């Protein structure tokens, strides 16, 4: 009871034009007919797309009860819950893909969440906003204040994004915990894949969002 009555942090929401692209890119990474768990399923558009266009058994977990009710009332299998507390219950290998989009920076224990994702799923798909983006770096350097951008738009004292990381940070964690990066890409503000996507160093400066597909080694 306590954990649901907690004030629910609002993770960063990308602007609408990028959101669809973000979900489309994720859907492209998922094979037809897969068992999929979408953590933070929001309005359920990803699981609906996966069910309708790819015949997937796609389910969602969502922290916002109003979104859960809307999704279930729309015929989608979504349960109220969150990444930090509800993954531990699933058996090993229950899913082919476990998706966590735009939420990693807002969970309490990102490393544990990743570990659980790759325990209950064969593959994990993770997207997050890149804190290494040049604008973020420039604002901190030039003003000495916490950056405020279109993506990082909440003040430090009230942001739900308590674990920001850069693309390089994330890659280092994957290496440390023995996860294989099967695919990755970074996109700029307009949601375009860019020529620097093969260079982690450049992506870490110019990529506004990052998307990874992982599996265990």
């Amino acid at each position, binding site marked *: 009871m306590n954990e649901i009555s907690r004030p629910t942090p609002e993770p960063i929401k990308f602007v609408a034009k990028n959101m669809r692209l973000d979900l489309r890119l994720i859907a492209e990474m998922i094979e037809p007919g897969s068992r999929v768990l979408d953590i933070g399923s929001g309005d359920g558009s990803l699981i609906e797309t996966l069910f309708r266009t790819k015949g997937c058994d796609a389910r969602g977990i969502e922290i916002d009860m109003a979104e859960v009710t809307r999704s*279930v009332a729309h015929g989608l299998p979504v349960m109220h819950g969150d990444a930090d507390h*509800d993954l531990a219950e699933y058996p090993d290998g229950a899913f082919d893909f476990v998706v966590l989009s735009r939420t990693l920076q807002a969970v309490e224990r990102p490393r544990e969440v990743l570990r659980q994702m790759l325990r209950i799923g064969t593959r994990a798909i993770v997207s997050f906003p890149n804190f290494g983006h040049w604008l973020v770096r420039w604002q901190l350097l030039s003003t000495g204040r916490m950056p405020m951008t279109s993506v990082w738009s909440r003040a430090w004292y009230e942001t739900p994004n308590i674990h920001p990381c850069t693309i390089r940070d994330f890659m280092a964690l994957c290496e440390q915990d023995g996860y294989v990066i099967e695919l990755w890409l970074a996109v700029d503000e307009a949601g375009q894949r860019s020529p620097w996507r093969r260079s982690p160093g450049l992506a870490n400066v110019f990529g506004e969002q990052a998307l990874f597909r992982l599996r265990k080694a």
Partner: protein
Amino acid sequence: MDLPDLPEAEHQNVRFADGFVLDCGTTLPELTVAYRTYGTLDAARANAVLVCHALTGDQYVAEPSPVTGKEGWWTQVVGPGRPVDTDRYFVICANVLGGCMGSTGPRSLRPDGSRWGTDFPPVTIRDMVRAQKRLVEHLGIERLFAVIGGSMGGMQVLEWASTYPDALFAAVPIAAASHHSAQNIAFHEVGRQAIFADPEYHGGRYHEHGTIPARGLAVARMAAHITYLSEEALARKFGRRLQNGGLSIFGDMFQVESYLRHQGSTFVRRFDANSYLTITRAMDYFDLAADHGDDLAAAFAGTRARFCVVSFSSDWLFPTRESRALVRALNRAAANVSFVEIPTDKGHDAFLLDEPDFHRTLAGFLAGCAERAGIGR
């Protein structure tokens, strides 16, 4: 308080004369299941929805009860164009085993013509479900599209999913739990003791004395009714408002007293005390995990049913945490689970009342399942 026995009414039923073995080991020589259906069974016999009623409910889900004349207890949920749409689904509801609306129970006659009364053997939620299974088979239905129920009805839903996993496509336990808590048992025990303490109870043989333990049963209902409401709902409906002004000892002083007394007095006109004892015992005894080595997930191992678990925020009889524990067990069994908590101040009874979010959720879940099951195309 002298009241006539419950009005006799003809209830649609089916009789199974081949004996019915109960969990307690006793065999009932014959089993009668009283039931009602709504809507039309489709050619594939695939659109049947079983509704399981709660402790004091009955099979008259969507039509007036012949006993009370009051409209069905779930007309907001079951009917044409309702969430459980009788234009689309074939809805079945049976009076539970042990009940008093026509199914075999303490009020029924034994083959020798005497009433069962307190000799009626203890029944379990699983016995109730087995009796429903007999009915469903009798109706020629191999697999139900959905089993839906609130409170004790939700317990039956869980038992269905556990005992007959291949006989249902979807399961909707509402405001329910996998076991009755100590607190719930305690409230039931207050009610039972009130019945026992009524001199008109006559050790359960009140029929032979031409009376009913109306006071005891009314008190049992009053105590239970408090648990169906929330403090907020009581405060909103009655607050501390007085009934007729001044201080009194024997009359009703507060409006809430008058309300509870009304609940008690109308209840005794439609419910049998021995049935109340039998069914409350069945609820208290229910513990699905205990039946599976204390592992609730084992009760659902390998299930392919789609679950929709619904709780209500102000329900303290079957609180959300119980539903959440159920959801986690279903997750451990890798079941397909939807789970919502409906925000409301109406307490446990919310599942019977006008809760648009709940109704939308139920309708959408069933529609989504129907699409996947290929029903109604």
